[in-house]
């Protein structure tokens, strides 16, 4: 019997890349050691594939095939191109923080007039000179997931944002990830937002590509800590170029009486995966998570959420909507665990998919693991097509087929968008949906 060593071509090529890159990656000592260990974990596992349960529907060996070499730091021309790509995504009144090809671009960012109690640094700075506790937190994500391990090994830059106890930011923070490279390259970023006790913030993340970018890869991770009594409103908009890959893992930890409202929409990119672990670690905390996939062509988008109720009296509501046309493929995996101590947990999850063509696909995998007996938990899922009688009614009133579909699609995704807490943030989601709808008509 032949034993085949599970090491792909890619694995080998990447180890050369890591060997070359490691000296230029920020952080020495413990950070460098952690990178080495993480890389070894990744090397042993390789790209995740369908036989790994969490990646069942998103086989990166088939879809992505290889990890590209890291993009060089952007030059002046790249920053300029990023600047013009930014314009349609600008948010009035927000503090913009821009990562161009995975590197913080101060020229495009709002770096002055920081509110009292707000600290913004780059990942590079913190890994090179930050305090040990913060570095340890940045290195904390669980590397048993190969893509998290890869990110830990290769992370180049990102934002480390701290909001002091009691400080409620008035300006939303807007992190924009822009790819500009004319060759297929990868970006490795990691960001952290830490809200102190009773602090408050709004974080918007946009992922976009400048005109003419090639099949780039975004490898990102996000750490969010919401302190006791704090509140975080979070919106992610994936509007990458149609050839892009976007692989992101988020780890969210909530203190007691904390409130986390998060919304994600994937309307761009070729293959996207967002995996979030949300730990309700303090009592009386509340999570509202909603999301929308708008897919056509051959787009593939995977949202994998893991809600971990470890303490009593937590609430979590998940609403997910997928609209899939052509040969698109939407994946939603929602796992809720209610641990033995987490009595009086209220956890609900509702997902619906709308298939606009015969070849469109939507996979939905809800998993409830409940170990406490006094809880209210539930989930529901439906998949269907647009209602013909509604389409006819609209067309009889003069709407073309595409216009009629657009109105019904907006209504369908509206159920998820409604869960966003503020009108302004809802407006961002609606605009992103409108851009997708306009592009298909």
């Amino acid at each position: 019997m032949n034993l085949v060593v599970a090491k792909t071509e890619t694995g080998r090529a990447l180890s050369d890349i890591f060997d070359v890159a490691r000296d230029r990656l920020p952080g020495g000592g413990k950070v460098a050691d952690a990178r080495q260990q993480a890389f070894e974990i990744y090397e042993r596992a390789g790209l995740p594939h369908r036989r790994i349960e969490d990646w069942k529907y998103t086989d990166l060996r088939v879809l992505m095939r290889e990890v590209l070499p890291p993009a060089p730091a952007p030059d002046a021309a790249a920053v300029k191109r990023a600047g013009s790509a930014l314009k349609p995504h600008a948010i009035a009144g927000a503090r913009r923080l821009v990562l161009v090809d995975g590197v913080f671009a101060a020229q495009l960012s709002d770096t002055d007039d920081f509110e009292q109690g707000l600290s913004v640094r780059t990942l590079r700075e913190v890994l090179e000179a930050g305090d040990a506790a913060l570095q340890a937190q940045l290195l904390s994500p669980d590397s048993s997931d190969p893509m998290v391990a890869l990110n830990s090994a290769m992370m180049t830059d990102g934002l480390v944002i701290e909001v002091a106890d009691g400080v409620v930011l008035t300006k939303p923070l807007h992190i924009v990830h822009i790819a500009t490279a004319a060759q297929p390259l990868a970006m490795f970023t990691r960001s952290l937002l830490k809200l102190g006790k009773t602090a408050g913030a709004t974080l918007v993340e946009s992922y976009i590509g400048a005109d003419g970018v090639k099949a780039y890869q975004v490898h990102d991770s996000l750490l969010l800590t919401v302190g006791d009594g704090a509140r975080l409103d979070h919106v992610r908009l994936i509007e990458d170029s149609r050839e892009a890959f976007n692989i992101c893992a988020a780890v969210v930890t909530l203190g007691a009486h904390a409130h986390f409202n998060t919304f994600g929409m994937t309307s761009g990119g070729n293959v996207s995966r967002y995996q979030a672990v949300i730990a309700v670690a303090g009592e009386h905390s509340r999570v509202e998570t909603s999301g929308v996939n708008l897919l056509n062509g051959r787009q593939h988008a995977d949202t994998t959420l893991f809600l971990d109720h470890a303490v009593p009296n937590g609430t979590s509501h998940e609403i997910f909507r997928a609209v899939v046309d052509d040969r698109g493929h939407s994946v939603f995996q929602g796992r809720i665990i209610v641990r033995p101590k987490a009595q009086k947990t209220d956890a609900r999850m509702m997902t619906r998919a709308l298939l606009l063509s015969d070849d469109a696909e939507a996979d939905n995998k809800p998993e409830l693991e409940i170990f406490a007996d006094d809880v209210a938990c539930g989930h529901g899922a439906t998949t269907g097509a647009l209602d013909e009688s509604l389409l006819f009614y609209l067309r009889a009133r003069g709407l073309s087929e595409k216009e009629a579909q657009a109105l019904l699609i907006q209504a369908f995704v509206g159920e998820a968008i409604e869960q966003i807490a503020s009108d302004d943030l809802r407006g961002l989601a609606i605009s992103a949906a409108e851009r997708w709808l306009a592009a298909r008509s």
Partner: protein
Amino acid sequence: MSLLEVKDLQVRVDEREILHGLSLTVNAGEVHAIMGPNGSGKSTLSHVIAGKPGYEVTGGEILFKGEDLLEMSPDERAVKGVFLAFQYPVEIPGVTTINFLRTALNAQRKARGEAEFLVPDFLKKMRSVAGSLNIPMDMLKRGVNVGFSGGEKKRNEILQMALFEPSLCILDEMDSGLDIDALRVAADGVNALRSPERAMVVITHYQRLLNYIVPDVVHVMSKGRVVKSGGKELALELEASGYAQFEDAA
């Protein structure tokens, strides 16, 4: 020239023939009433004119302003001025009535090459039309027909007709579900739209509606055909004698 000409129309649904050679001519400026027993094919005719999928036209033709209507998509028909007030309007959750009305009106205007209404102008127009039909604004902020009473749904159909100003209005049992006052208001709305360029086809079971909307011609439909046409007195006759006399004729 006639506004609408239906010639020897044969229509099937699921292999079953429902209309067996129906003919009807409506000129601009006229109001026609169609009466007839349940299941005689009145709604089928209105659906085929509006372009609802699922009907197979196996014979005959429909001309609208001289053009072949059957070649057009439902939205093209609407843009050209065909309007059907449905017997059973659907509910559209998540689409507010205001947004729906503005989207539809502007889609029609855009398709005709006319300037689209800006929000303030549209709201002004909608307020005045809704006001004349006694439709409260808060109803318009709800999802299209969602949770509307039967009568409110019918009023919403008349509101659309008044906003879109179509040249052919087909009203399929607009009187069912309306209370007496609402019936009068809706009929006033329809009468206000009567004009030499416009025609109405009013489908109803009850003579009472025709006291408010006085027809020029009354047709009796039975078993998929028009079996008798006459003046407004025909409706009174039917009220007295019922449809039994036509069962054999059909």
